[in-house]
């Protein structure tokens, strides 16, 4: 296993900047997820690491060796493609053996390693099948075995779960994580699915418009997003725009005066991000909170969501544990008045710039 370093990696297509000076260090045995909406440059970055795209500028270093200008077949990476990209005219065993054959591994040793790799992904009994005779999940596991059997320095995964159905996706996700941990693989994983990234990765890299928005653990990104984009992309956030009139005091455009943490944020234009699950809902208009009218109640099983129109015209979504029968909240429905409250330290002040969340306002 090797360390992977990207230094100010850049890719321009004409006047379009697909990847904008991305720098990243992936430690040995670490799993880093590149996360972002489609077109954010995450796949371009991965393909530059694999060598399928030449960068415009910057450096790629794998295990201490600068591979920026090496062709894909001279880099020590093992890639799993979104479409699996199995060789259709070769059996499962031949697919897995291909990389070893290219490395001129002796036949006896190659056979043993292929068998071991197939056992690793629990496909030993299907070695002589052709790819088209396998299910999607099985094909995916062949692709994993094929990439892993050569002991690559860096393991690359390009949306490997997006072609699987929901149940299988969960299974394969766990399987990938276990394999990665057991073998101590340095891994870069590209996905647009935040849940996938949160559950799999040691660290996440959130990208948008070719730029790295934030790098951190799932908890860091969730608890302290660096900007509005991250606040809306990792989990969900209510966003209230307004002004920080003085340290600890925020007034929204709708005229709502709110207490906020007195952190380093300087007074002026600001956006306030608030997670729906940090908001408590009480029936009726009461003191000690923000009063509004319920616009929509959505039952989601363990939790129930209340979309509440505040007096100032803003809308906030609160997500609370579904009330038990007998709880007065149970009887609250659209049109009823409710009181919302939350600890001041749950509010996070962010720069009001663009990069707004798609579901701003309502959520």
């Amino acid at each position, binding site marked *: 296993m090797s360390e992977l370093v990207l230094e100010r990696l850049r890719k321009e297509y004409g006047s379009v900047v697909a990847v904008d000076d991305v720098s990243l260090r992936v430690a040995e045995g670490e799993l880093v997820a590149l996360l972002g909406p489609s077109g954010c440059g995450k796949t371009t970055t991965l393909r530059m690491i694999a060598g*399928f795209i030449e960068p415009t500028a910057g450096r790629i270093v794998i295990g201490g060796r600068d591979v920026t200008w090496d*062709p*894909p*077949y001279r880099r020590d990476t*093992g890639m799993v*493609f979104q479409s699996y*990209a199995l*060789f259709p005219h070769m059996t499962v065993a031949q697919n897995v053996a291909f990389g070893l054959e290219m490395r001129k591994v002796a036949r006896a040793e190659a056979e043993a390693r292929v068998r071991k790799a197939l056992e690793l992904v629990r496909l030993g009994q299907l070695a002589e099948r052709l790819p088209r005779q396998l299910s999607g999940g099985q094909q995916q596991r062949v692709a994993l075995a094929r990439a892993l059997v050569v002991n690559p320095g860096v393991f690359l995964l390009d949306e490997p779960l997006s072609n699987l159905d929901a149940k299988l996706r969960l299974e394969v996700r766990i399987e990938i994580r276990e394999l990665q941990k057991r073998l101590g693989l340095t891994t870069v994983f590209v996905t647009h699915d935040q849940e996938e990234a949160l559950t799999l990765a040691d660290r996440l890299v959130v990208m948008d418009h070719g730029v790295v928005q934030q790098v951190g653990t799932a908890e860091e990104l969730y608890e302290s997003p660096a900007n509005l984009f991250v606040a809306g992309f990792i989990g969900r956030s209510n966003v209230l725009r307004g002004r920080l009139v003085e340290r600890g005091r925020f007034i929204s455009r709708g005229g709502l005066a709110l207490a906020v943490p007195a952190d380093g944020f300087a007074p002026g234009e600001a956006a306030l991000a608030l997670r729906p699950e940090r908001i408590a809902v009480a029936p009726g208009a009461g003191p000690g909170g923000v009063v509004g009218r319920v616009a929509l109640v959505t039952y989601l099983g363990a939790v129930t969501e209340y979309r509440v129109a505040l007096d100032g015209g803003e809308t906030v979504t609160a997500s609370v544990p579904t009330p038990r029968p007998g709880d007065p909240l149970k009887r609250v429905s659209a049109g009823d008045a409710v009181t919302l409250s939350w600890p001041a330290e749950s509010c996070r002040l962010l720069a009001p710039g663009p990069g707004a969340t798609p579901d701003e306002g309502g959520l």
Partner: protein
Amino acid sequence: MTTRALEAARDGAAAAPAAGYARLKRRAGRWALRGLAGLAFLFIFIPVIFVLWISLFQQQIVSFPPEGYTLRWYENAFARSEFRHGFGLSLQVAFIAMAIGVTSGAAGAYAIVRFRFPGRETFNTLLLGPLVVPGIVAGTSLYVYYIMVENLLDVDFRGTLHGLVLGHILLTIPWTVRLVSASLVGLDRAIEEAAMNLGAGPWTTFRRITLPMMRPGLVAASLFSFIQSFENLELTLLLVGPGRTTLPVAMLNYLEFRIDPTIAAVASVQIVLIGALMLITDRFVKLSRIV
């Protein structure tokens, strides 16, 4: 249909005749469709069936009904040297034209699909060109062109094997370009990337991965090229020389003087040969999936 039947049952006996009528109508529609399909097939195959049938007629002047059946026309066909030699030459020309045409056509198709270069569209249209030029026109042009080249280089082209083969290569290229392009366009580039990712250089990737995946297109292109060349008459008419005629030209020559079932017998052999080729090819590559 079941829902309708259920509804009918629920609505009682009064509705039952209506459901029965609907079922009848559907059944009639199905039979009408089958009948039409059968007619279409018949229309396509009647000429073939007649040729095979007539080749067995006993009388020399073809007339209906047959007076009896015989195999002597086949005997005659095999006995006549112009058919034997024509068959041999046709096979020879078709094989060589197919080999050269498919190789170069496939290379052209690869360039068109995989590379972006100036004049790519023009190149593509040019390669499909022989398909739109009528055979007689192409043959005449080639004839004139060969004269020019002969004068220039002092090498014979008219009435020679290489002259004939060169002309037939023109027939095979449009088919090859179209069929091989189609198989390349549908090919997932990630599969080649996967090979390179596993350590295969460009040449190894082509040989081990790309080429085998092009196989269905190449097989179909070979088959159609062979048939195109083997059956061609118009272009060939102007390129054959004395003592060097292909089977279709030999058949035309024979027809000028005699109309007896021998010609049907020769055609039958041709039909059976090409049919067999198609069936054999279809065992390896499902033709219906490519063409």
